[in-house]
């Protein structure tokens, strides 16, 4: 059975960071996709979910972009990612995502705020009352899309894959107009902050759309 989440905004920044850092985050069965030799891709995505089985909530997903799993005869994914840390604004959303999708979570509620000023949108994340990250991106041309992504998960019970279709209006560009500020906070402990290039090489903004998860696929058991 498919699971749907409606969102008002989903904004992502994609940043170069050292492959050594990516490999420290990834489980051994996943390979980082490199932008250049030695430079992998860290992404931060902030969601403003308006509709779900657990009500509206905000979510931030910290990921490493990895090789997708390609199978002959099946739809080719646009890309794949390994979310190494997810945080939500409500406990219900967190419990739901851990139970259903085996996603690794920050175990406290966080603040996820969006502020839009014309073509620019900023997502601000706070945890324990302290700033964690601010992601700013801008828009380009808007087009309706339906894109397949793969999300790989791993916990103490096994390794999993979720096929996710993102539908909605999309703006994507590489104008290098965005910026991320990652604060020195335990939330960001997996990254060497000075090694993450603060300007995204790609900015992706989706709005007024639906994120649809296919049933989880178990790849390995623990």
């Amino acid at each position, binding site marked *: 059975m498919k699971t749907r989440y409606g969102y008002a905004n989903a904004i992502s920044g994609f940043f*170069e960071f050292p492959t050594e850092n990516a490999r420290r985050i990834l489980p051994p069965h*996943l*390979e980082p*996709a490199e932008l*250049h*030799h*030695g*430079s992998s891709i860290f992404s931060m995505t902030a969601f403003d979910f308006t509709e779900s089985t657990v009500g509206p909530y905000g979510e931030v997903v910290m990921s490493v972009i*990895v*090789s*997708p*799993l*390609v*199978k*002959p*005869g*099946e*739809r*080719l994914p*646009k*890309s*794949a990612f390994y979310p190494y840390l997810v945080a939500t604004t409500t406990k219900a959303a967190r419990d739901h995502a851990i139970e259903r999708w085996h996603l690794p979570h920050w175990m406290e509620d966080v603040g996820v705020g969006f502020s839009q000023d014309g073509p620019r949108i900023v997502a601000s994340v706070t945890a324990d009352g302290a700033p964690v990250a601010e992601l700013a991106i801008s828009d*380009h*041309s808007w087009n309706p*899309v*339906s*894109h*397949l992504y793969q999300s790989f998960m791993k916990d103490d019970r096994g390794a999993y894959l979720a096929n996710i279709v993102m539908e909605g209006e999309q703006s*994507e*560009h*590489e*104008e290098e107009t965005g910026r991320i500020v990652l604060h020195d906070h335990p939330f960001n402990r997996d990254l060497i902050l000075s090694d993450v290039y603060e300007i995204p*090489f*790609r900015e992706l903004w989706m709005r007024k759309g639906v994120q649809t998860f296919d049933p989880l696929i178990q790849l390995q058991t623990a």
Partner: protein
Amino acid sequence: MKAVNKKEAGQSAFAEYDYSNFYYGAGDDPLNLLTPFRDWYQEALPNGYYLYSEPLATAPTTRVRVQNRKTGQVQDLLNLASYNYLGISYRPEVKQAAIEATERYGLGASGSPILSGTMDVHVELAKAVASFKAKEAAILFPTGYSANVGFISSIMRAGDNILLDQYSHASIVDGAILAKSRTIFFRHNNPMDLERKLLKCSGKKLVVVEGVYSMDGDVCQLPDIVEVCKRHGARILIDEAHSTFLFGPNGRGVAEHFGLDKDVDFHLGTFSKSLGGQGGFVCGSKDLIDYVNAFGRSRFFSCNLAPPIAAGLLAGVKIVESEPELRAKLWSNVAFLRRRFAEEGIDIGKSASQVMPVLINNDAKVFSVAERIQDRGLYLQPVTYPAVPKHKSRLRISVSAAHSEEQLEVAVGVIGSTLREAGIIP
């Protein structure tokens, strides 16, 4: 279209995917990407990808006969796509030298340059290049690609640091990979970012830049980069693929243009751009060249340049030395085209050289624009993501000394009217 399944996606596979989607793929079989790529490519070809690799039936002069891969028809086109910046490859004396070398040596070198594949014409060409570049010695490589790969991996090792401009040519990146060194990219042409990266490096450091960058036609900020490198004890390699024989009072390249010939440690160039031939070279001290001769594996384990090519290149170098007016004509053509593009409101970005990107900045339109331009008589190549950033698609122009102003004026007219019709310019 089963594998890509465009119906499920509700979109054209051509629009949804690009080359970058077919590079990575986990799974058990290395052939898993073939079918989805084939399905996408079959749709991409008639939508514009047919414009790549169209066979030429003539020499790459200013007019070429090109077989349209979509219609099969041969078109007579004004050529703005070939390198051949000085129009040398088809000069009678160059062709004659190659013919005579074919009579004398036959087709190929029949051996590695370090074993039996070095002919006297190779020795003569290396000496001529060293003399032209005012260096003690030079060493030849079978291609420009192998020059970067072979040179970088001959002098750098695991644990060393190689700092590359983010827009570096693939051969430079592959050389760094083969060297197994730590590879660090700095922002394009940005000495401040280079300095930030150098501050984090210890041990051997090599900074690699290009004289002219091939997608944007902009010139390396060499004075500032040299200063930064000196401050941090880094060696500098300049790849002058698109600038040797063109820039500087004697045509030695961008390093000479800035008066920094002696401040750059390693000088690399190719014969395929300005001379329209084939091959690459590195110039420097005799000690350096002896070392590269011993450890440049891409050369060591390749057959030497074909002797007719080497002979033609030797004739080409002599023409460059004896006819500085060719460079003057090229720069006059560049100035003419820059002025006319500016008058027409055509954006060529930061180009400061004979490589001019006509910026379309619209990935969805670049192929239809390129198609219309070819149908109107111009031979140009579209360049799109992932070769350049998303929405930075362009048509790449190579200006030659062989072009007449009348030809360039025709090109401006066709490009201007097509961009206007497509809504790219007002």
